[in-house]
Every structure is written in C-alpha cells, then in structure tokens.
C-alpha cells in the first residue's frame, strides 16, 4: 500500500501541473510526457498522461476492431469514449488492462503505455497490470459471495496483509455504499439492487488499490436514479483516481466527463478515433462533421 500512497502524492503534483496546463496550451510541448512527433491528443493539453496509445490496432481473429488509434489519457480526469455500437470503444478500454487477451485468437499491434511503461512488453505480467488498473463492467457482476467477501476478494488474491475489515469499510465508503449495507456485510452481494451491486463492484475494484478505473458502460443496466448515483460517485472518485468510461449515453458523457473521445468504425469494421478533446468543446463545437452528426442524433 505504501507504493500507492507515494503515487497519490505524485499524482497530486501532476494534478496541479495539469490545472496550469489547462490554462496554458503551450505547456504540453514542455511537459515531456507527449512526443510531438506522434501527437497523441491533438488539441488537448494536460500534464503527464496516464495512458498513451500509439498506433494501436486490434483484431479478433481476422476481424479488425481498432485501427491506428493514437491518443493519451490524462491523470485525475474523467475521459469518456463515445460512439455507435461496434465502433471499438469497449475493445479500446479492454486494451488498457489487457482484458482482451482472455479471448482466444486476438492480435494487437502498436503500443500502450501506463505511466510511460509499455504494458505489452514481453516481460510484463498481465496479472500485475490488471491488479493496478481496476475495471467495472457493463452488467453488475458481483460474485455470489457476501458483500464483505466481494470487496475482500481482490485484496485476498493480491496477498493483502493489512486490516481487512478496515479495507472493506474504507472501500465501501469510497463507493458510497457503506451506509446502505453496513448492518449486514454477510448478506449476499446478489441480494442488493442493481445500482447497489454496481457500486459494490466499484468498491471491489477500489479495494485492490488501483490508480485508474476503467468503466465499460457502467450504467447501461441501471435505472435513471441508480445511474445518477453512479455519476455522482464518478465525480467524487475522480479526485483520487483517473477514470475512463465507455458510454452509449451522450448526456452521461456530457455530464460526467472532462474529455471526450468520439470513435467510429470504418468500412473495414475497424474502430478509429475521429475526434478527441475537452468534453465541452466536443459537444458544443466539434471539429468534425461526423462528430456533430452523431451528437445531434443524426445517426447511431
């Protein structure tokens, strides 16, 4: 856990840098995190990015799913990936923690770095990658175990030595679920409502101690009220974590995200990054006609 505390401190400094960066667009070229040659995120300026993707392409068997995606994700910000079904946004998200490898027959080219480390380098263990990059899925998927065991699961498989009760309580509090379940942590996670289950899944991810949480359409199976709660939670969590969220719901992207990336599948079926920028700009004054068409509901 000491490692993570150090990182939180480092993140804070980067965060301050980032706020300055927002004001001064020129800061980017001097921050050193981005190489001007590849220009991972045109038009966006922020400090050292958490993830940088360079020419990322991805195939399921022979079927291309992503083509030449180059972009960077900022620290302590919510970045939304939007686009119509099949545009590769979930695939892109799953490339960030090597979840895609669980499917046989996939292939990836290009580079994905996390804190400047190439996570697809041959000496990198995908299990270690997933321990540090949390993920929340489309359908709430708590284990058929107690609330307590759900939260403790990740810590246990990671050999956590600290006070488990304290960790479970802290994680549930961070996920804004503790007050609702504190009376009976032995109850099955599946006995909770859909929205509570999803917050349990968030707590479970937080308990492992990641610095980033990937969310794959976390609200698509939830009612509007539960959705609102998750969105509020995302805004709270972004104080301490980097969040990347895939969403079908454009209002949601507009409400929760700081940056928005719009993706679209080409003729070959491979998803490409069409436009990426501060959410406000993408939604109010997009550069690309296709972005505007999608956002205004002309297709998709």
């Amino acid at each position, binding site marked *: 856990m000491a490692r993570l505390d150090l990182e939180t401190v480092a993140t804070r400094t980067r965060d301050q840098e980032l706020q300055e960066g927002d004001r001064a667009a020129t800061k980017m070229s001097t921050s050193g995190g981005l190489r001007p040659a590849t220009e991972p995120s045109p038009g966006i300026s922020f400090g050292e990015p958490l993830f940088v993707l360079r020419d990322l392409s991805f195939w399921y068997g022979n079927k291309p799913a992503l083509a030449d995606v180059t972009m960077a994700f900022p620290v302590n910000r919510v970045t939304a990936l939007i686009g119509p079904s099949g545009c590769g946004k979930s695939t892109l998200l799953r490339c960030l*923690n090597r*979840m895609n490898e*669980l499917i*046989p027959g996939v292939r990836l080219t290009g580079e994905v770095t996390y804190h400047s480390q190439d996570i697809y380098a041959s000496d990198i263990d995908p*299990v*270690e990658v*997933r*321990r*540090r990059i*949390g*993920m929340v*899925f489309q*359908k709430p*998927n*708590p*284990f*058929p*175990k107690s609330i307590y065991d759900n939260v403790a*699961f*990740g810590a*246990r*498989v*990671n050999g956590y030595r600290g006070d488990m009760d304290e960790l479970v309580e802290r994680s549930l509090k961070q996920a804004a679920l503790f007050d609702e379940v504190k009376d009976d942590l032995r109850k*099955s996670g*599946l006995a909770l409502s859909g929205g509570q289950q999803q917050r349990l*899944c968030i707590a*479970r*991810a937080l308990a*492992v101690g990641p610095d980033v949480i990937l969310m794959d359409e976390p609200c698509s199976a939830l009612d509007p009220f539960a959705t609102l709660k998750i969105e509020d939670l995302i805004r709270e969590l972004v104080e301490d974590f980097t969040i990347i969220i895939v969403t079908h719901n454009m209002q949601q992207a507009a409400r929760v995200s700081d940056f928005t990336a719009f993706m679209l599948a080409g003729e070959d079926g491979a998803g490409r990054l069409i436009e990426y920028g501060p959410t406000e700009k993408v939604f109010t004054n997009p550069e690309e006609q296709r972005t505007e068409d999608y956002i205004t509901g002309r297709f998709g």
Partner: protein
Amino acid sequence: MQQTLYPGGPGAVHQALRKRPLKRRGEFLIMGMLVLCATVSLVTTGLIIYVLFSESATFFREVSLADFFLETEWQPLFDPVSFGIWELVMGTFNVVFWALVMAVPIGMATAIYLSEYAAPRTRRVLKPVLESLAGVPTVVYAYFAVNVITLQILRPLLGNDLPIFNSLSASIMLAVMVLPTIASMSEDAMASVPRDLREAAYGLGATRLEVAVRVVVPAALSGVMASILLAIARAIGETMIVAIAAGSTPRLTLSPLESIQTMTGYMLQVGLGDAARGTIDYQSLFAVAAMLFLITFAFNVASTMLVNRFREVYE
C-alpha cells in the same frame, strides 16, 4: 380498402377460430400414451421396492433385526451362521472411500483444466474421449483390475503379501470408472458459470488458478457436488468390479490392502450360486438389497439438502 382476412363475414371468423374436436382428440390420445408410459415406470419402481421389503420381511422373521445390526460377523454359508450386516456395509464403504480419494481430486483437476486452461480445440477432442471411458463395460474393468492392476502393478510395488483379491485394485478401477462422470459433469457446471464472473476476477488481478478455485468452482459447486454424488451412487451400486477384484471375504476394515466383500459383491455371489428359493441365503439377498437401497436413498436425500444449502447461486 384494407383486405380482410375473413372474406366470408362474421361466420367465417367463427369457422376459423372454433375448436376442432378431431385435433383435440389426437392431443388426448398422445397425452394418454405419455401418462401410461410414466405410470409404467412408476409402477415398476413401486413393485421393486415392494418385493424388496416384503422378501426382507421374510428374512427378518428368521433373523432378528438386533442380530442383523448388532452382530459383527457376516457368515451366512457356514456354521455358526451369522448375519451382521456391518462387514458388508464396511466393505462397500471401503472401496467407495478409496475410489473417491483418488477420483475426486483427479476429476476436479481434469474439469478445471478442461474448463479454464485447455484451448477450445483441445477441449473438443479431450472431452468426448474422456466421456467414452464411461462406455467401457465394467466387467472389462474388473478383469483389468485383477490381471493388470493387482498382478502387474500393485504386487511388484507392494510385494506378494498383497492378496490377489484386494480392495485397492477394485478402488482404483472404480475411480477410473467414475472419473469421467466427475470430470465431465463438473466441467459442464464450470463452463456454465457466466463469463462476467471470470472477467470480474481477472479484472481484480486474479491468476487463472485463483479464478478457477475461488470463483468458478464455488459458483459451480452445486453441479460439482452433484457430479461427485452421482459418482458415489454409481460406485456404491457397482457390482462386477468389486465382486471380481475385491474378493469375497466380509471383513470389518477400511484397509485397502485386504480382501473384502461389499454388499453388491455378496448379492452377486448368492445370486449366482445355488441358493434355493426360500432358503435363508436367498432371503438374505433381499435384506442386503434393502439395506443398500436405504443407504443410497438416505444418501441421496442428504446430498440434495447439502447441495441446496451450500451452493453459491448466481442470477
């Protein structure tokens, strides 16, 4: 104007929608046949149980229940005649226990390998091969147990003091016999655990083994338990292997290195021998069968309760 489905007016509507007695009669006929078939199997089962207990009742007029349960010797053929069931029960328990000791870990490991580690193509080839093991006639296993396992493996390993008919060889063969049941049914149960749960665990940094042991097996527990219970039921009821390989010496022991006799082994011995109808030997067969039935029945009920209680339900 919109084209009507019923050009003949209201009468045509009635004609189209009314009940058709002939069609219904066909339905009744089919339903009747199905009920008949179901009844035949129910009645047969009922009759078997009736015969079992009525014949046993004749036996217990000669031998008291107290002797049956309190004597420790099963010696129906020589004087002094003695009918203490526990030696046979222990014989069954002996082979089944040692068979499970071998089959459950190997079967679970096989299931975990097939479900979590094997490539889809490997699984497609291996699983049918494994399942075809269940099609080997048990009498083949029985002679294999004596000729190969005992004579060529166990005796060279453990020395010639090992009786030629010993419970270990029977246990090994029983384990081989039930292994496909455990592995295949457990694999089915594990494969039906939603991918969501696996992804959740992988997303938290679990390794393949942790996902298998901490998530997939608990979630598939009811199916896994069911496979083990079915394996136990098959092992308890198995006759040829134990009759041929385990010996015919009733003995109150859990040692795998001795010659023993199981309930089914005794029944086969008596059934094949020249025990005349109406003799005490002949009736003892039904008493042992009733005992076997009660044990299996109690076991089934208990296991159903156990599975319902401990399974981790998803969805």
